[in-house]
């Protein structure tokens, strides 16, 4: 079953007197449970595409369905709600709310979802343990390493029970070893829980871990490979 169905997505940004074509007729499907890596040089349109999939940005034209919902017909509030219930985000860095502890950061999304406080904290601790941060719940972001912060972000994304986890260059600010560990963590969760991941990255370690690899160039999909 396709969890993402994108057809002829196009996005341009004004740039001086002309405009930059960030996405140029992008069409692809992602199956439920897949582990997709979108690779490509800087400026090839990876972030733009990911933002479309996560209902953070709108294409100029095309059709886009994620988790069975037509993202392009939604209003602002609906999109926020869609993100809340369907999308787990992991960004390149500074994912966390500085004044909150790791546990509170994870619990925050559950609070947005309206879960009772006890359940929130229990789930937060369980997910922190799942990403290998058992006992670190009381630390604030500035008391954790970059790799640990990214793990908290992964725990937070998963705690929402999303249809889809979107990660934009999650390893870019980490050293090779820590980045490798993070990507193996995501891959393990993908295999264990069947959570769908779409990761934008040009990190070779991430590309190696891909089940489906989409290579972009100048806003187009140059190549799409599935390793079975």
């Amino acid at each position, binding site marked *: 079953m396709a969890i993402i169905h994108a057809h002829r997505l196009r996005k341009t940004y004004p740039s001086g007197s002309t405009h930059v074509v960030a996405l140029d007729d992008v069409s692809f499907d992602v199956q439920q449970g897949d582990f997709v890596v979108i690779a490509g040089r800087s400026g090839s349109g990876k972030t733009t595409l990911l933002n479309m999939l996560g209902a953070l940005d709108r294409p100029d034209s095309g059709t886009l369905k994620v988790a069975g919902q037509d993202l392009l017909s939604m209003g602002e509030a609906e999109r926020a*709600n869609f993100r809340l219930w369907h999308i787990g985000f992991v960004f390149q860095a500074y994912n966390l709310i500085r004044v909150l502890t790791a546990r509170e950061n994870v619990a925050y999304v559950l609070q947005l979802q309206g879960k009772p406080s006890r359940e929130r904290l229990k789930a937060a601790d369980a997910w922190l343990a799942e990403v290998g941060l058992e006992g670190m719940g009381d630390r604030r972001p500035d008391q954790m390493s970059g790799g640990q912060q990214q793990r908290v972000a992964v725990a937070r994304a998963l705690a929402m029970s999303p249809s889809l986890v979107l990660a934009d260059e999650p390893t870019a600010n980490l050293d090779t070893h820590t980045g490798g560990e993070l990507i193996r963590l995501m891959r393990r969760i993908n295999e264990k829980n069947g959570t769908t991941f779409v990761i934008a990255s040009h990190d070779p370690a991430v590309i190696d871990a891909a089940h489906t690899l989409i290579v972009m160039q100048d806003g187009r999909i140059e190549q799409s490979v599935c390793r079975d």
Partner: protein
Amino acid sequence: MSAVAMGVISLIFLWGFNDGVHNTMMRNLQEVIVGSIQIHAKGFFRKPSLQDTLEDVPSLLELLDRMHVQRVAPRLRAFALAAGRETSEGLVVLGVDPRLERTVTRLQEKLDRGRYLEEMDRASCILGQTTARNLGVDVGDEIVLLTEDRYHVLAAEKFRVIGIIASGEMGIDRGLAIIPIRFMQAWLDMGQQISGLVLQLPPERLEAVTAALRQHLDQRFEVLRWYDMYPMMKQWVELENGFYYIFLSIVLVIVAAGIANTVLMSMLDRIHEFGVMMALGCSRLRLAGMIVLESVLLGVAGMAAGCLAGLALVSWFGRHGIDLSAQMDTVSRFYVDPVVHTQIDTDHLLVTLGAVLLAAALAAIWPAVRVARLQPVEAMRHV
């Protein structure tokens, strides 16, 4: 937050000073001679006359007793011509019960020389110092009071001046002679009749007792509060409070600006975070509400600190007083004591605190609107 605290401290202290002065003024007016409430025959206050006496005094006293009004004194009032050593002058003769009057007013404290009336006194009188000077008499001298008795028959009597009052208040220092009510009743053939009763009440009971009395008493009586009789001071107090409200709003604008600045700074500092929160699915409304809540909490914290410190100041100066005797001598006639004991009226305190909270909430509107307008993708580009 410290701006809020400072604002609240200064507001509370100024209110404390203001209310302290005002309450003393009002209490002094009541305690020196006017009383809190006077009961007369209908129309007596506007057009006093010896013949318009108070009816049903015993049942009236019983009623007051049932209402637990303990500080009550009778008065008899007449107009007379006073002849002294040199000149004569028209004045009001007030007959008072020396013992009961002490429970109602503090006229005796305003004595400049001589002594106050006592139970045994008969043809003795107390004069204001201006009248005494005009008549050319002093303690120990005699004056003659000439008036009409109940049946409009001329009555004249010699009185010995036993005390001189210097209150600083024109209405007392001039044109007033105080004599024992019993002697006055006999002299003017009044029997047990009196012109009215004077009541002294704590301020918080004033309105309730007035309402109850008016309800119980029929058309033959008039029940007048001190400010029904002498509205000037109350109007003055209200006018001054009006100025304080203007001052309050100015301080509030400053407080609001302080809060808005703090909230805006902390908001700009967190734009990236707000972007992340929106990406996670936090709605704009919720985010805006969070900003307003933060601002109100900031206001509450500053307010609590300021309130505590302000009330401590007011209570300290309430106990020890602020001595302004060097700065003022002329004002004493307005019933202001040279030592101000600060105190704050609850309604003034509540209005001030409520207004500070409102200012805090209003101050957050602009930052909240700005946060609600953020686009998550752009916000997250801020680092």
